[in-house]
């Protein structure tokens, strides 16, 4: 049975809180750019960008990063990862790149994303924002901004739905392993 973790209202509040933390932590908001990890991170990054804009009045650049080609489990997984588009239409050199993902789990996606990012330039620093941290890290990776920590068992699934059109449909669910 799936259980709701966050509803759309709570998600919105969480994103607002993270926005403020970002502003607090980064004195020069002009140096920040957002890069969402395909697919869940991209929509989340767009939400963050619009909130950042409404708070600071500054339009933050948003890119999409596909990490399929950088995964370390490419020959282990049953299903080959689908290659999606990477669209970072700006230079990340000397910027503070805020990597955005929906769920932080083993940390391997973030490792892949950092590898991918450095092929696009040399950022001044990389920060990490996630909506959900479900634990079970396999690499020494720590997020800078966390929406919510959720204890899970390894085989549970966490499903984040960020609706592109209608934010009232947003949800986070946990589907327990049988």
């Amino acid at each position, binding site marked *: 049975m799936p259980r709701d973790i966050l509803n759309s209202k709570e998600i919105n509040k969480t994103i607002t809180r993270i926005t403020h933390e970002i502003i607090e932590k980064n004195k020069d908001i002009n140096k920040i750019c957002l890069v969402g990890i395909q697919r869940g991170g991209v929509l989340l990054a767009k939400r963050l960008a619009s909130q950042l804009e409404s708070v600071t009045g500054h339009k933050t650049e948003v890119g999409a990063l*596909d990490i*399929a*080609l*950088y*995964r370390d489990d*490419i*020959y282990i997984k*049953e*299903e*080959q990862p*689908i*290659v*999606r*588009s*990477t*669209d970072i239409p700006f230079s990340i050199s000397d910027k503070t790149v805020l990597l955005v993902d929906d769920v932080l789990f083993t940390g391997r996606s973030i490792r892949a994303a950092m*590898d*991918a990012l450095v*092929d*696009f*330039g040399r950022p001044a620093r990389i920060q990490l924002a996630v909506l959900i941290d479900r634990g079970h890290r396999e690499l020494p990776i720590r997020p800078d901004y966390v929406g919510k920590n959720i204890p899970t068992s390894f085989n549970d699934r966490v499903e984040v739905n960020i609706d592109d059109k209608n934010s009232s449909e947003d949800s986070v669910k946990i589907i327990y392993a049988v």
Partner: protein
Amino acid sequence: MLESKDLLGIKELSADDIYHVLETSDGFMDVLRRDIKKVPPLRGKTVVSLFYEPSTRTRTSFTLAAKRLSADIVNFSLSSSSIVKGESIQDTALTIQALGADFVIIRHASSGVPHSLSRLLNISVINAGDGANEHPTQALLDLFTIRAHKKKIEGLNVAIIGDIAHSRVAKSNIYALTKLGANVKVICPPTLMPVEIGQLGVEVHHSIEDGIKKADVVMTLRLQLERQSKGFLPSLKEYFNLYGLTSERLKLAKKDAIVMHPGPMNRGVEIASDVADGPQSVILEQVTNGIAVRMAVLYLLSGVKE
């Protein structure tokens, strides 16, 4: 993911497979636009190209594709030892497998060679052109190029002009385009038309003026110059007069028609220079796209589990 470990021809692919390759190629086009045009998914994989026919373009394209995927690529070339020493192709292929290759890219003048290697080897076999049978990656890159300009394949009028009988490029394109629902018109003299080609679902024309009308895509093929000496044609001049793609003829196609050629071109034989270099020509884009498509093929085949 593709079904087979090998890419033998378009004949063997479904429409879904073709779309999957094209969509995956989009991702690799992104890679090619970066400053650092290299990604790691084939790290530790070895690709061997085994070309029994000379080819600089296809081979270079595959080589770059493999390198940009971080694979190691080794070229077994026509002039290198064992081929010249008369070793059988089966033995050569088994040797390549024993050397630890994960992919073999094969070009051969005899149709069906990739198919027999596919049965013989456990590693992936990619057909880079076999006889007059198929050249699947060329057709895939052609479709990718058409799709980039026309946003779709279905319903397009595609005119293919040239030596259809001897052209594996034409064959692969015919299979691919008809599978995706394009209207294909083949245009050439009857001496260069494969027998019973109409059964493949294409329209047959002997007049370029008739065939090219309302075309969205005009594809000309290289005419092997030896066709004249073998008696297929009275002269190259007559061929150009009857079938050469000139700007006058191109006007019969749609205004926004694109002009394609798999290269290398014989200017003044199958295509006039002003057309080849004209605004409708996408010939050089085809070359660029070829790398992305071949990267996609290598990547997708690497994911096929036995």
